[in-house]
């Protein structure tokens, strides 16, 4: 009880006497939290709403998210309807006009990337489809660079006093990042044309980037549970067109991919999908280092 009281006092004090004018960033998913941290350094305070073991489609507008959105200066979301189920509700309840869509305090990463996988038929019979295209853009490392530039510009706009700081951080990050992308592409050269199966259609950008060949998806329709009938059909396809591995994101259950991997004599590969998804994916660089290592291991 006493510690609770102390906690309240601290909270109240923190509220009445705001400390340094750090930008408070609310990131919906870990990759944008990590990117904001890379670009903002100690000038930003980043809160990440979800972790790598959660399905970003299925999050609830829970109390802690509303409280954090209330104090945020900048909301960094993926957009393209990835957070459609919860972010609008969080923003509506938070009572923070600064971070409403359309304001400088609201940034959507998918708005600066050309989206792939736009559904040919917009119908829920096709599953939980995203009308604007596949929102999982972070599986292609080049997209991180595409997002970094406008995100740094947004930080500069909101905190112009530190403009030089953000620009310097952006330049340093982009130098390191382009070198890393070259390295990843070299490392991933043997993956070109490697046939893979995906559990959820979440790796469109990765497949495109590294030149993998997506043979099938375990989910009959995006967002629907793999059914035995569909898995059997995938297995039949695999007997004709074998694949090297089945890919799934760290937040997904391994049951379906283990089942098919055993029967189709391929490897089940768990990819971090975002920062924190595996032990190796500690930061943005680790995310792709680990992703490519795991893919190479799966293809060998």
């Amino acid at each position, binding site marked *: 009880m006493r510690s609770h009281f102390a906690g309240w006092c601290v909270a109240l004090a923190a509220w009445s006497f705001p400390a340094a004018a750090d930008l408070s960033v609310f990131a919906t998913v870990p990759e944008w939290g990590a990117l904001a941290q890379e670009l903002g350094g100690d000038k930003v305070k980043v809160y990440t709403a979800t*972790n790598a073991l959660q399905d970003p489609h*299925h*999050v609830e507008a829970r*109390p802690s998210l509303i*409280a954090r959105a*209330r104090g945020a200066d900048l909301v960094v979301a993926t957009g393209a309807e990835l957070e459609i189920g919860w972010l609008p509700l969080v923003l509506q309840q938070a009572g923070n006009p600064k971070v409403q869509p359309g304001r400088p305090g609201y940034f959507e990463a998918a*708005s600066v990337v050309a989206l792939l996988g736009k559904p040919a038929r917009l119908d*829920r019979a096709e599953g939980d489809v995203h009308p604007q295209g596949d929102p999982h853009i972070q599986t292609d490392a080049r997209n991180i660079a595409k997002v970094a530039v406008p995100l740094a510009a947004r930080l500069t706009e909101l905190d112009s006093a530190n403009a030089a700081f953000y620009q310097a951080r952006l330049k340093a990050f982009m130098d390191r990042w382009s070198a890393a992308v070259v390295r990843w592409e070299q490392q991933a050269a043997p993956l070109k044309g490697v046939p893979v199966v995906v559990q959820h259609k979440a790796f469109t950008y990765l497949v495109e980037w590294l030149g993998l060949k997506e043979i099938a998806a375990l989910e009959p329709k995006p967002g629907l549970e793999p059914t035995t009938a569909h898995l059997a059909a995938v297995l039949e396809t695999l007997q004709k067109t074998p694949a090297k591995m089945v890919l799934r994101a760290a937040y997904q259950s391994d049951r379906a991919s283990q089942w098919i991997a055993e029967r189709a004599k391929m490897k089940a590969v768990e990819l971090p999908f975002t920062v924190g998804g595996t032990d190796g994916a500690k930061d943005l660089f680790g995310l792709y280092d680990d992703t490519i290592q795991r893919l190479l291991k799966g293809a060998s």
Partner: protein
Amino acid sequence: MFRLFMLPCACALALSLALPARAADPELDEIRAQIRELKSSYENRIQALEQRLKDAEAKAAAPAPMPAAPSSSISAFNPAVSVVLQGRYANLSRDPAKFALAGFAPGGEIGPGRRGFSLGESELAMFANVDDKFAGNLIASLTPENTVSVEEAYGLWLTAPYGLAPKFGRFFSGLGYLNEQHQHNWDFIDAPLAYQAFLGGQYANDGLQVKWVAPIDQYVELGAEAGNGDGFPGNARSRNGAGAATVFAHTGGDIGASHNWRAGLSYLRTRAQDRDYSLADRAGNDAAVAFTGSSRVAVADFIWKWAPNGNAHDTSFKLQGEYFRRVEDGDLTYDRDGTLGLTRTASFTSRQSGWYAQGVYQFMPLWRAGVRYDRLDSGSVDYGANAAFVAATDFSPKRYTVMLDYTPSEFSRFRLQFAQSRTLADVTDNQWFVQYILSLGAHGAHKY
């Protein structure tokens, strides 16, 4: 390309010329077969090459994908529209027309609903930003009796100062936990008995609501409402001022990645004018009575949710409970229509309470099972001088409910529910329900 294509043709031609098909020599046949094979193999390869070239050309010719330009048609400003379809089958061992909660004045929509097949409320919702400051939401309910009712119709002021979130129009009150949620989002087909007894099912206000979230990391939400107070336990009165006032406070948060919770306290104050109902008096007659006075309801609510790492795909659990207490003070008119010739008005006071607790466990993807326990306490009811005609009961209504539901996708759900309801002394109603809920259109919100 041209050369590549010409080469095998020329070879084939040269070969066929060099080896005219004159003799039916088996050797010649073999050669011919080989040529055919060669030809078809080259043709396949050329086709593959041509296809690759076409693909490359298409790729180069395709303009760099641009963000889609917004459609210029007037329909581009249409609001987000969604529809919820519901239906059910009920098997009730007691006639629902005789439903009553012993010791509690009835009001609003109470009881288990009709027997057999019936359509539930079909809900039509529209939401959009009005302009740069406001958003509007309309939720209409099309009832199975072919009437339309406005469940909610409110404006939201999105850019209000000081972190205030004002809402105005008709809305479900922020009272308690379940009240703000629409019935199709509930974990059971019907409202807890406490909601039925104290709020007539669900409490809506026509008026103004202001919510405020404290700008600290701990979630603290305070809210106040002023409304016309038409809803039970109040009723429509001709007055200029607010007929009902509500205040509430919520707090909550995360405990690690796997647990989160919310707790709240709410208080509603309203008045009733000649709120009439009928009850059985000491002589066994159905007497018409009317209450005039103040009604105050206090609610404490709590919910705790668990999912491993916050990922509710495979398993999850939620536990929720609410406690209600209502105090009514005023006058009760006995035999108000004079049928019994005994019309008399006397003071009336009641202090009653009720609660429910429920747990819902998702034991595998798509499947959930839940249990709920409801209990009401008739408390102390003082009829004053009318005690000569009317007796208070000390029976405590209760209900046990279990349910199983299956959610094939985020947009559909099927539920089986069984309840054993004892809301009157010596009466047990066994209630079986089968329900479906289908959501169409705009993606629904994952409300906590």
